[in-house]
């Protein structure tokens, strides 16, 4: 029973919320720029519009181009299953841990890069090579940060990690968690193709990273790619807020009301993180492409300092 509820809860929350997060970030950015901006539900409308449209597929492309949207979307959905939005209801056994999470997302990315090369368009190739550069630089940071917390909780399972951290009181008071928090924040920016790594709203093909890869997609294929990217972004945000700012320990009672309250707090945390991301986007400028390694190195150093501190400060006492 728990398994079914968990799956339903995960899928429903992430799927429903992912486009809204994008809309919220856009709305906040518009607000800070003294603009009205589009409705926060704009991405739902866009997806609805795209799903109803036919898809144009280049004659020279192979099956990879057509299969990729499904693979990418599926990988994002699987990733969504691995990061609990609430620990009130946990199944007895979640098959998979954060190593699976990173690998599954890696699979989606791998196919996205292949598909971009598949059409032999100019920008796809450029996007792929840049994405490969950014992801190889950013993936070690994800793994090292998560391993640090994994070491503390003696488990690689994300639900287990969340439960352990909940017992630690307020984790962000501790230097190890601060390092990991900052490193993961940079990861979110990089993984969701936001300023200063990439500019999600640009029309300049030559500067794009993520957008360049999906430039050839249209109709429902594009909808799947965009939806997948939004889910991926929310998965990373969930990871950050639920692992490093746990909330379920403050709910003293159980039952569906507890679940409802837990989800409400989760929405609230996501909302705050959305604001932080919007502020970062407004206040920074897109980096030179070759400055991205510096930023990735910075993120890696943060996560590495986290793991060092874990050992220096005496292992499991953290």
């Amino acid at each position, binding site marked *: 029973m728990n398994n079914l509820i968990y799956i339903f809860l995960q899928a429903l929350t992430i799927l429903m919320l992912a486009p809204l997060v994008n809309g919220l970030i856009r709305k906040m*950015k518009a607000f*800070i*720029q*003294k*603009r009205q901006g589009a409705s926060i539900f704009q991405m739902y409308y866009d997806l609805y519009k795209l799903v109803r449209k036919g898809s144009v597929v280049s004659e020279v492309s192979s099956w990879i181009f057509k299969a990729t949207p499904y693979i990418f979307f599926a990988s994002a959905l699987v990733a969504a299953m691995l990061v609990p939005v609430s620990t009130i209801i946990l199944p007895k056994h979640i098959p998979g841990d954060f190593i699976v999470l990173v690998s599954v997302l890696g699979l989606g990315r791998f196919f996205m890069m292949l598909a971009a090369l598949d059409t032999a368009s*100019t920008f796809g190739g*450029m996007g792929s*090579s840049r994405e490969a550069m950014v992801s190889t630089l950013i993936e070690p940071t994800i793994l090292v940060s998560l391993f640090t917390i994994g070491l503390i909780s003696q488990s690689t399972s994300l639900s287990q990690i969340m439960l352990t951290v909940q017992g630690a009181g307020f984790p962000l008071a501790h230097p190890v968690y601060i390092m990991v928090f900052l490193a993961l924040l940079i990861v979110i920016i990089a993984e969701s193709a936001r*300023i*200063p790594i990439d*500019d999600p709203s*640009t*029309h*300049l*093909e*030559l*500067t794009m990273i993520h957008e360049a890869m999906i430039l050839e997609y249209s109709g429902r294929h594009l909808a799947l790619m965009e939806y997948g990217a939004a889910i991926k972004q929310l998965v990373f945000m969930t990871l950050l807020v639920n692992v490093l700012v746990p909330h379920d320990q403050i709910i003293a009672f159980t039952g569906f009301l507890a679940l409802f309250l837990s989800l409400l707090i989760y929405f609230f945390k996501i909302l705050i993180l959305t604001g932080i991301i919007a502020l970062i*986007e*407004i*206040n*920074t*400028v*897109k*980096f*030179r*492409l*070759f*400055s991205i390694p510096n930023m990735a190195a910075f993120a890696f150093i943060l996560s590495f300092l986290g793991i060092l501190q874990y050992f220096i400060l005496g292992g499991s006492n953290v």
Partner: protein
Amino acid sequence: MIFTDLHQKLTASFGKDIKNIKIQNSKEMIIEVTSDTLPGICSYIYLELGYPLVLMFANDEQSLQSGYAVYYVFADRAKGLLLVIKTPVDPERMEIPSLSQDIPAAATYEREIKDLFGIIPVGHPNPKRLVFHGNWPEGEYPLRKQFPLKRKPPLAKKEMSFQKIIGEGVYEIPVGPVHAGIIEPGHFRFSVAGEPIINLEAQLFYVHKGIEKLAEGQSIEKCFYISERISGDETFSNSLAYCQAIEKIAQVQIPARAAFTRVIFAELERLISHLGDLGGICLDTAYLFATFQFRMLRGWAYMIADELCGMRFLRSVNKIGGVRKDFIAGKEKKLITDLQKIRTELEDTVHIIKANNLFIDRVENTGILEPKIAAELNAVGPAGRASGLGFDVRKSFPYAAYDKLAFKIPEHFNGDINCRMNTKIEECFESIDLIFQAVEAMPQGSILEPVNSVEPYRSAFGLTESPRGENIHWVMTGENNTIFRYKIRTPSFCNWPALCQAVKGNIVPDFPLINKSFNLSYAGNDL
């Protein structure tokens, strides 16, 4: 006479080869030479006297019993003189010696003349088509007089070829002509090794409108409207250049009030254009706060234009012999308060963006246009001034009322995006200041000195400093107050080759930013 010195120097060196020397409109000296003497005298003027080649054009003068002629225009920017070398073209051979080896700026003009007149520049290093693409047939030269205006030649099917850069890991990126944003068409062929750009070849001229051909035979009043439609965002400076050329031919002195009114509108146009450019630079670095700040300011400037003349793009403000109406009367106070508001907000915005290290890191040392290359290609306007070429038509060839107003020309030497941006920022403040001065100094009086007829077969240059730089129009009148030939050279024509040089060695994702810092016109380049 201001030309005495020059006259002596030239006759001393080339005395026997010079067929005829004529001085017209007091500041234009026309020297006729044969095509044999041409390379010598042009090299002498360019290398020894140091006058840059600012314009080169051909003219079909067969109806005047003198065949085709090619004009080479050199400028003495210190004294404000134009030195025109005119050479006839042998109608049997239709050839001129190419000067591109000595004068790099001549290369694009020679290709343009080759496409439009069929005059072959012998010895040109890269005689590729410029104006026409593969679909235009050989042997059709639209600017020859015998080519009918309405003629539609059959489509040829020839592929365009591009420079090949061969080496390990080098590949080509074709971009355009259709772009993702709502911008004009242009094809860019990058040769890159990874991200660094080795070479960029810009294939422009997708919007050929035949403006020069269209102008021929029109009445001088009608041609005014053509001149306003050369390039949408340089309406006023283009129409001003045209009016000035006609006024010189008609020997009309415009009233002082009209001259000051022209200054106000010219500077307003510059302000609008520069604010747009600054917003564009910020947008391309994804600096959204500053982008919307500059867009708002540009909106305010557009509103001023709308209030003054009822037209944000400043059309139908000019008129040959002055301005159409007294646009400023009674609006002085409002104009000054509105501009003051823009200036305060602009000061704050500039202060904020200059304190943003990340932003400055993007623009500094990106897209450097070396001063030497800028001088060789005759880069004009803010792009030239950012690379140490501190000239401005408003100073070197004063027009309207600029000689009565005080203003500074910004000068920067590094030639990167930061310098171009700073040049534009400083010019924004100078423009606002100039408008204040002009409103202050403006005398009462008439605003129009009507020009009813012009003498046939007379020519004159009209020069203005458009927001993008030195803008030169040359008009030759025909019978019955019509236009015989109208040659337009907008600043974009000079700066496109400079852009291609500035991007070399930069990385591909920086190209849009470099392009935006030049902000060249496609329509103004391709007439």
